[in-house]
């Protein structure tokens, strides 16, 4: 394999792995803070026990997110030095601000929260978990400002072979970032909500501490119901943005080779990238026009037309991303999103009929669904990143131009393998510990004054 290919695998593996844990952290941080707020307001022992219980699970997940996060920041320079030289003037800013504004906040106050249970006034202690939640959401926004610039570069000029900032506010308020941030934060809440719902349901199913977990299940359910619906609406506005700024990505998401007006939505197809066609298609009329322009009349450009446009502007080359992966990742992601909405709404109905704790079938479903958001999050990023190929910065810099020229294929391969193994080991440990700490349920009394 070429260095480029290995570097891409390395980035894919380390980033997807990191983002397996991060949305869960973001969602659970807010939910833990909500539980603790209930404890603060009601002084109810149950909410304190729930806070500690979900807090423990949160900490395990948080730890994995933190350690895999450092790799990302180093990786740009290590494996993608030419990219770093090209974009540093712009891309570095949000990264630096993220560390300064969000990471310090998170890391300081997670320790204050963890070690401060009996040492701080209750209000300050509550504030510390909220600051962690705010910090993790802020960090998502800053990293999305960075990523949004790769998707839709704005506020820059090309000078001496690199991109230079000429409008900071444009970079900060990039429309791409606004649509991405809404969707990413909301889906993180869905992830955390379904996790808390699933864990609560698991205990209710086993008849363990039913009254306590009925409380967390209800909070999680309301949270998830709202968030899962918003995930769909924010996703929809994301698509309308994509068709404007990354039409090739949208066409690949739809497996749309020839332009259509109005464009129908392909429900199923086998993609033949060589022949540039989609076979065995099942199509729903108008729907892609709705997706892309929110009407039933507009034309959606196909990949062949876009390829011709690209060749005109950028010269010979293949400007079409790997369509099969993008097409199916998108479909699966949307499908899963629908599953989440149905799961939440079904839960609300069961609650309304007063059957939330007794409907074994529903509870069982949630214990499976709770893992699926992790998959949906990864699929979303596969669409976003692979759909942008062959560009690393859309229409400005090719991925092949970004890789470090002085790192050998052997080094790249070796480190990729070791990262994968270590991350696999980490995942095993984390899952093992999560199971161990989730299983007994909430503790009767606090036993640990010291966290370590």
């Amino acid at each position, binding site marked *: 394999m070429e260095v480029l290919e290995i570097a891409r695998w390395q980035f894919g593996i380390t980033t997807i792995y990191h983002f397996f844990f991060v949305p869960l952290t973001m969602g659970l941080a807010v939910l833990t803070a909500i539980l603790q707020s209930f404890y603060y307001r009601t002084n109810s022992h149950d909410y304190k026990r729930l806070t500690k219980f979900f807090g423990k699970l949160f900490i395990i997940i948080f730890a994995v997110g933190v350690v895999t996060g450092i790799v990302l920041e180093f990786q740009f320079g290590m494996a993608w030095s030419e990219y770093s030289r090209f974009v540093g003037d712009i891309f*570095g*800013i949000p990264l630096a*601000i993220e560390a300064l504004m969000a990471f310090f906040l998170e890391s300081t106050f997670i320790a204050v929260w*963890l070690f401060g249970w009996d040492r701080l006034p209750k209000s300050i202690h509550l504030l510390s978990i909220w600051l962690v939640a705010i910090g993790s959401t802020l960090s998502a926004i800053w990293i999305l400002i960075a990523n949004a610039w790769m998707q839709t570069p704005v506020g820059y000029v090309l000078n001496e072979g690199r991109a230079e900032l000429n409008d900071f506010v444009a970079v900060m308020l990039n429309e791409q970032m606004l649509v991405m941030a809404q969707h990413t934060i909301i889906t993180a809440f869905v992830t955390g909500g379904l996790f808390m719902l699933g864990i609560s349901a698991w205990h209710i199913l086993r008849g363990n501490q039913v009254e306590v977990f009925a409380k967390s299940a209800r909070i999680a359910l309301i949270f998830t119901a709202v968030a899962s619906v918003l995930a769909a609406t924010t996703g929809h506005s994301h698509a309308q943005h994509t068709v404007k700024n990354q039409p090739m990505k949208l066409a690949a998401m739809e497996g749309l080779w020839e332009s259509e007006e109005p464009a129908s939505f392909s429900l199923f197809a086998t993609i033949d990238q060589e022949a540039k066609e989609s076979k065995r298609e099942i199509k729903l009329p108008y729907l892609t026009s709705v997706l892309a322009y929110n009407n039933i009349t507009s034309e959606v450009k196909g990949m062949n037309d876009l390829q011709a446009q690209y060749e005109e502007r950028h010269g010979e080359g293949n400007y079409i991303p790997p369509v099969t992966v993008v097409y199916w990742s998108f479909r699966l992601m949307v499908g899963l999103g629908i599953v989440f909405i149905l799961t939440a709404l079904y839960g609300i109905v069961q609650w309304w009929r007063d059957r939330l704790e007794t409907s074994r079938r529903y509870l069982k479903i949630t214990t499976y669904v709770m893992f699926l958001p992790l998959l949906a999050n990864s699929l979303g990023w596969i669409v976003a990143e692979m759909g942008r190929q062959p560009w690393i910065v859309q229409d400005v810099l090719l991925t092949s131009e970004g890789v470090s020229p002085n790192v050998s294929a052997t080094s790249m391969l070796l480190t990729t393998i070791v990262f994968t193994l270590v991350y696999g080991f980490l995942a095993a440990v984390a899952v093992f510990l999560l199971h161990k700490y989730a299983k007994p349920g909430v503790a009767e009394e*606090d036993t640990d004054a010291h966290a370590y």
Partner: protein
Amino acid sequence: MDYQVIWFILISILFIGYFVLEGFDFGVGILMPFISKDDVDRRVVINTIGPFWDANEVWLITAGGAMFAAFPEWYATLFSGFYIPLFLMLLALILRAVGFEFRSKMTQPWWRKAADQFIFWGSLIPALLWGVAFTNIVQGLPIGADKNFTGNLLHILNPYALLGGVVVVLIFVLHGALFLSLRTDGEIKKRVEKISFRLWLPIGIITAAFTILGYWNTVLFEGLGLVPGTLPALAIITFLATFAFMRYKMQGYAFGSIAATILLGAAVVFYGLFPNVMPSSMDKAYSLTIYNASSSDLTLQVMTVVALFFVPIVLAYQGWSYYIFSKRVTRDAISRPE
């Protein structure tokens, strides 16, 4: 003043802050196996840095991010050139964090032993590699006209650089020992104080040797001249003062004093480099300087405003966290099931 100069100073401060802060928690991690008689001792030692190590590490992440933003060429050359050492450092930092976070999650001895190994090696290796990396920078690196590092791993692991690594490890160990003397009591405190006394002179000798050899091995003396200026002189004085404070059992001052030595020593390195950031050993014209490695003025201006706003806030709450967790960690508190 140029924005480039401001940012060179700010990044120096971030790295120096990182060495001063993470320095002692690396030292504590390295010392942990040698000063603990049982699991309770080890937990006492780990809990002394429990609330701090993670936020200390953020200084590194911030330094990296700030370098990326303010000096993209420096960031790109350094990180791609030191690909393998940084990879090892990342692995060490990952396993170290896992050791801290997950150690007490299980009671089985094999689990805790494994975590102890992660903590020890995860503290030793990054400390050593930082010494190696910065020694390499002041030695000058084979950087070509395209700003890329052209050497290999053996070049980076040259004997003088390894000596630099050892110096950093030893100083961090002393720093950690003095931190522990502030945060523990009883037997552990006695043990670390004994170690501090034993280590002080050897550290002084090795560091002096490293500095003298630096005349032939580094670019620093070209910038600083032969007779040490104020910064090196203060570094030496604070190191001597550390011993005096230890001798008179003024632990707080001893800790502050060794922290000052690290601060000043690192400051000498950055001051000696200025205005270079990565001197080239191939041709001086290829050296990365704060001018040919920097971002545009607008980016530096934006970052300056951001830094002026956030750095004081961060310092305030991080300082506050040290204040609220200033009580000594005792064996009783660890083994008492509340």
